[in-house]
C-alpha cells in the first residue's frame, strides 16, 4: 500500500511540475500597445475596432483591422489569419491574442465582446432601471 502512495505522489508531483512549467510558458499577459510592440512572447491587447479599418484580404485569407485604445486613442494594426468571428463589426471591444511581428500584431485568437452582453444594462439605462443596491 505504501508503494501505491509513493506512486500517487510521484504522479502528482510530475504532473504538477508539467502543469506549472506549461503554465508559465503559456501565460499571455495583458499589455498596452506599446508594450506589445516590444514583447517577445505571446501577449494580449484589448481595444475597440477603429471604424472602417476592417477588410478581409481574400488572396491571403487574412482579416486586417485596427484596434484603438479607448483612453489613449493609440492605434494598433492587427492581422488575423482565420475565420472572421461572428459579429465582428458590432464588437464593443476586441481582445487579440498573439505576437507583434513586422508592422502589425499577428493575432492567433480573437475574443469579440458583443453589445448583447450588456443588454440588461442598456435597457435599464434607456428606460430607467431601479438603483443597484
Amino acid at each position, binding site marked *: 500500500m505504501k508503494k501505491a502512495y509513493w506512486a500517487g505522489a510521484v504522479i502528482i508531483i510530475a504532473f*504538477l511540475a*508539467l502543469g506549472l512549467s506549461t503554465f508559465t510558458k503559456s501565460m499571455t499577459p*495583458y499589455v498596452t500597445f506599446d508594450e506589445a510592440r516590444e514583447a517577445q512572447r505571446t501577449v494580449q491587447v484589448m481595444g475597440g475596432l477603429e471604424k472602417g479599418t476592417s477588410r478581409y484580404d481574400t488572396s491571403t485569407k487574412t482579416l486586417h483591422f485596427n484596434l484603438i485604445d479607448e483612453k489613449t486613442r493609440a492605434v494598433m494594426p492587427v492581422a488575423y489569419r482565420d475565420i472572421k468571428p461572428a459579429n465582428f463589426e458590432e464588437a464593443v471591444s476586441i481582445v487579440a491574442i498573439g505576437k507583434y511581428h513586422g508592422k502589425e500584431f499577428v493575432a492567433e485568437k480573437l475574443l469579440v465582446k458583443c453589445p448583447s452582453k450588456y443588454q440588461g444594462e442598456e435597457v435599464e439605462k434607456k428606460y430607467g432601471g431601479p438603483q443597484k443596491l
Partner: protein
Amino acid sequence: MNPQQIGFAPGTLAIWFSLVAGIATCLAYYRALRLAPASAPERRAAEYGDQIRFARSLYLAFAGGIFVASALLLRVLLSHDFRISYVASYSGLDLPLNYLFSTFWAGQEGSFLLWLFFGGLIGFAVIQTAREQEPQVMIIYVLSFLGIVAILAKQPPFRFLAEVPPDGQGLNPLLQDPWMVIHPPVMFAGFASLSVPFAFAIGALWSKRWDGWVVRAMPWALFSMVTLGTAILMGGYWAYKTLGWGGYWAWDPVENTSLVPWLATVALVHGMFLQKNREKHRKINLILAILAFCCILYGTFLTRSGVLADFSVHSFVDLGITGWLVAIIGVFFFGGLGLLAYRWREIPKEPVIDPETGKEKEEPFLSRSVLFILSVTLFCASGIVILLGTSAPILTRMFGKASQVATSFYNVTHTPVAAIMVLLISLVPFITWRGEAPGSLLKKSVFSLLIGLCGFGLAFAAGVRKPMDLLIIGLSAVGLAASAEAIVLYVRRRAIRSMGGYLSHAGTSIMIAGILISGVYEEKAQVTLPKGQPIQVGTSTMTFTRTVFVNEDGEVKQFNQLNPALLPDRRAKQAMEVEVKSGTGKVWKAYPKMYQNERTQQLMANPDVRSTPLMDLYLSPQSYDPGSPARQEGTVLKLEKGIAKTVDGVTFKFIDFSADKSQVESATPRVTVTARLLVSAGAGPAELEARFVTLIGASGPGGTQADDVAIPGTEGRFRIRKTAASEGVIEIEVLGLNPGSDLKPATPESFSVDVTRKPLISLVWTGFYIMMAGGILALFRRMQDANRASLA
C-alpha cells in the same frame, strides 16, 4: 427598498417567503434532530415523527415559494410584460414559444432561479432517500441554497423599469437554438444535485456516520455525474453545430467551471466505490464531496462576478453580487473543511490486520485498491490543473499584470492524463482486490493486448507517427477490449445491472481515442467558391450554386417562396447552397447559413455538418461577396487644410470652404458647401471651386450631390466625396487622369468557406453515450443497494 426594486410584487414576495420558509425548515429539522429516536426513549419516536412531518411541510413551503416565483417569471415572460426589466432585457415579441422558455435563463437572475427550481425539486427526492440521515442532510441541503435565495431576494428578476418599452431587446441570437433550450436546464439540474453529496458528507461529519452516508449518497453522486456530463456534452455539441469555429471544446472559463466539478464528481464516484468495497479511505470521499460543491460555487463566482470579463467570450457582467458570492464560498469551503479538520482524528482508519502476524497488512501494489486511488488522484490532478489555468487571471493579478493561459496549456497537460486514464482502464478488469502477480496479469490480458496491438497497427497504417498519440490510441484499444471482455462475463453471469462501471470505461476509451484522432488529425482548408464554378477541395468537388433561404423546418426556399404568414418562414435564414460531390461520387447539397439578425444587425454564421461514421465534413461560412460589374473608380484623396497631396502628377491643396445654409428651410432643405482648392497640373496652379450639396433628411447614394470639376490641362476631373468641414478635412475622388488604372474589373459572386474534415469525431459522441449509459446503469444498481440497506 423602493417599489421599483421590488417590481412585480407577487414574484418578489414569493422569493422572500421562500427565504423565510427555508430558515424555518432548518430550525424545524434541527429540533427533530434533538428528538431523534436513537438518542431518545421509545415514547419520543412519535414526537420525532411529528416533528419530521412538520419540517417537511416547511420544506414544501420553501420549495413552493421558489416554484411560484419561477411560474410567475415564466408568466411575465410569456405575456411580454415589458414593465419588468428582465423581460425587456432578454425577451422580445418575435420569439416563438420554445425560445420564450429560453429567455427564462438568458440572464443571471433567471439562471439562479432555475438553479433553485431544480434544487427545490430534487429536495423532495432527498427527503425520500435520506431516511435515518434526513434531519442533518436536509438542514445542510437547504442551507446550501439559502445564499442564492438571498441574492435573488436582494436582486429579484421582477424589478420594474421607469418607462415601459414597446418591445424587448430580444434573445441573443446565438441562444436561439433548440440545444440551448435544453442545455441550461440540464446543467442547472446538475449544479443543484451537487448539493446532495455535500449535504450527506457534512451530515456524516456531524453525526459521525462514516460509512452509512456513502450508501445513501452514492446514487446521488452518480446522478450528478450523469446530468452534469450530459449538460457539458450538449454544450459542446451546440458549439460544434452552431458556432462554426470547428470544435466542441475551447477550454473557456465557463466550460472549465462546469468540467472541474464534474471531474470531482467522477473522482467521488470512484472513491465511494472504493470505500464501499474496502470500508476504508473514508477521508477521501468527505474531501471530494465538499470540494465538488465548492467548485460549483467557485465556478459561479468566476463566471458571474465579472472578474473574468476580459478573458472569456461567455462571462456575464458584474451584477454587484461579488461580495455575496465570496461570502457564500467562504462559508461552505471553510465551514466544510473546518468541520472535517475538527473530526479528522475521529474518522476510523480500520487497517487490514494480517491474522498470522497480527500486524497491519500491506496491500499489494498491483491491487484494485491502488488502481482506484490512482484514478481518484488522476481526476483530482486534472481538476486542479484546469482550475489553475482558469484562475490564471486572478492569480497573476496578485503579482502584477493579469494574464491568461493559452489553450495549449490544457492540451499539453491533458495528454498524459489521457494516457494514464486509458492505462488504468486497461488494467482494472484484470486486477482483483486481493492483488495480482505480474505474470498472471500478462496471461489474463493477452487478448486485450492483441486488440491493442491491432489498434496501434491501424493507427500507424493510417499515418499516425507521434509516439504519444500511438500510445494513447493503442491503450484506448486495450481499454475497450478489456472492458468489453468484462462486460461479456457479466452478461454471461446474468449480472447486467452490475456492469455499469465497465460500460463507462468502454465508452471513455472510445471517447479518448475520438478526441485525439478528430482533434489532431483534422484537415482544414479555406476556399473561395465563385458561383457556378466547381472547385476541387481535397477529394471532393464543391460548387457554390445559389443563395437560398432555409426556414426553421429545414425547407429550402427562394425569398419569394417564403410565406410570411408562417412562423417558420418568418424566421427563415439566408444560406449558401453548395453542391458537394465526394470522391466516391456521392452528391449532396450543403447549406451553411449566413444571415443578419434583424434585431441586433449582427452577422450570424452557422456551419453545415455532414456526418458519417468515419468522417464529418464541416463547412463553416466565412464571407459572401455579391460581386460587382466592371466600373470606373477613381483615386480617393483625404485633404487636410493647407497640406498638398499629389496623384498622377497633379497636386491638390485644400484652401478653405464656405457653407451656404440659406436653403435649410426651403422645400428641399439642403446645405451647400463650396470648397476652394489650389490645383497644379502641367499648366501651372489654378484655383478651383467645387460644390458639395447635402440634402437634409435623405440618406443613401441620393443624399449628396457633387459637381465634377475638370482639371485644367489634363483629361482628368475630380469631385468631393465627403466633407468634415469642422475638422478642416475633405475627401475627393480623382478620375480620368490615368484611365487604365481607374477601370476596376468585374468581380464574380463568390462564397468563402472553411472546409474541415474531422476523422472519427463520431467516436466522441458514441463514447460519451456509452459512458453515460454505464453511469445510469450504476445509478440504478446503487439505488437498489440504498433501498435495501437499513442503517441505524
